[in-house]
């Protein structure tokens, strides 16, 4: 029996409240927050999933979960693109947002065990990928070589800088970073993220490759991966669409026959060959 609607079914549109425990700006547009559900329960997500975040009165938006389920609470990164996200940016510790979810498909955390993993992240694509990367690092012995490629448009927009610096130091993973535009403070790689693909040391045809980035990135990355003979069945993409309801009803996130909010956001690339709207 459900308290909210008086019958056996819960209201799929009713958010639960969560409280912000920590927050900071990651760059000029990206706001990071750590949250805990007011129910005291854990969110119970698997890397790759998203939640619908709302401030009642301003609306609701799909946001990728950036933290690993191995830690307490959960973390979200919100880009300032509209009224809702602008209002989220103004929130401080102790304030609340509504949360629905977690929704959607997950990264292949089990299947990936024992395999070499290559994460290719473009811009805010690092945000959902970080959930799986941290999960892998927390269960490091279960996985093979870990390579993380991070491409950012410009130096000032780099996300999770301290964390990237820590990853850079680790001996049990390889981080390669690049920025699209050169900058006085940057002496690393310059160029789009695809330029890093030939530098990958893992055996690409045998690795699992996880890709997330802006819409324009996929075509080029997938082309480069194909040239490097990474098979489509080993590639996973994490797609963004207008996931309005999150529960496979409203139709906004559809790519051909698939609902990104339910069948995705994580797709095996070989499952998308007959889905021309995907990329």
């Amino acid at each position, binding site marked *: 029996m459900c308290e909210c609607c008086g019958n056996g079914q819960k209201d799929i549109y009713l958010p639960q409240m969560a409280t912000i425990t920590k927050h900071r700006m990651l760059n000029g547009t990206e706001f990071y927050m750590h949250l805990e559900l007011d129910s005291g329960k854990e969110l119970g997500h698997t890397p790759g999933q998203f939640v619908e975040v709302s401030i009642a*009165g*301003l*609306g609701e938006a799909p946001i990728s979960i950036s933290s690993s389920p191995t830690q307490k609470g959960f973390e979200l990164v919100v880009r300032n693109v*509209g*009224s*809702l996200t*602008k*209002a989220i940016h103004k929130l401080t510790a102790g304030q609340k947002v509504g949360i629905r979810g977690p929704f959607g498909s997950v990264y292949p955390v089990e299947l990936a065990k024992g395999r070499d993993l290559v994460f290719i992240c473009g811009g805010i694509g690092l945000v959902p990928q970080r959930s799986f990367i941290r999960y892998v690092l927390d269960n490091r012995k279960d996985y093979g070589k870990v390579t993380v490629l991070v491409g950012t448009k410009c130096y000032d927009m780099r996300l999770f800088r301290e964390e990237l610096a820590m990853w850079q130091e680790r001996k049990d993973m390889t981080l390669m970073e690049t920025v699209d535009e050169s900058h006085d403070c940057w002496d690393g790689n310059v160029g789009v993220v695809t330029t890093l693909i030939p530098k990958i040391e893992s055996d690409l045809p045998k690795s699992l490759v996880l890709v997330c980035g802006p819409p324009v990135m996929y075509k080029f990355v997938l082309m480069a991966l194909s040239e490097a003979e990474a098979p489509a069945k080993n590639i996973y993409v994490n797609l963004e669409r207008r996931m309005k309801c999150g529960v496979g009803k409203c139709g906004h996130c559809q790519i051909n026959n698939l609902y990104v909010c339910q069948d995705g956001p994580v797709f095996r690339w070989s499952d998308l060959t007959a889905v021309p709207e995907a990329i």
Partner: protein
Amino acid sequence: MTKPRVAIFDFACCEGCQLQIVNLEEEILDLIGTVDVVEWREAMSEQSHDYDIAIIEGSITRLEDEKRIEIIRSRAKILIALGACATIGGVNKLKNNFSITDVKSCVYGKHADMPHLDTYYTKAIDEIVPVDFKVHGCPINGREFAAIVRALLLGKKPFVPDYPVCVECKALENVCRWEYNEPCLGPIIRAGCEAKCPSAGYRCFGCRGYVDHPNVDAAREVIDKYGLSLDDLRTRMVLFGSKQGPTL
């Protein structure tokens, strides 16, 4: 929280849109309760130069009005264009179809050259200064205006439809005016009016301006299917569509 200070100004217009605000009746009290109206010639005698939100009705038709709107813009944090004259130039733009000398002599006769009658081509507000929000329509839809104000007070981007009038018209179960062979502008005009004209048995006159990407090519071909000519459509677009946006 201090209430935002609101000033309402009018330029070349019939003031009918301000009247729509007054006509909100019960809601006007809610509105007055949430904002501090510091200047509104149609409803009060006080004036002020200190305001956050400027609401502008009317179009710009004289050089001195350009200066006035620039001053208002410099004082306001948010500038809202109210009604078709302000958002698209409105009916006033009809005169842009003629030479200004002809217009002046036709309207003012032998007084046409008097300095206080010095008028030029009509401009919408955003042809002079940046406009933050537009409340479309001739006249405005009071309910839409109220929703826009509430959204702004919450710091939220107001919802203004980007789809054609047909959406609202169909929802109201009107019979399409085209079924009566009447060239209705609904398919290319922005919704938000709740399809008032088609609901009353008239075609859409186009007072809210075009949608972002009107399919003008379609309009040109579809008119043929109905045995009408392009001129039948053009003449119906003159009233609000003169020298504005896509032309057929």
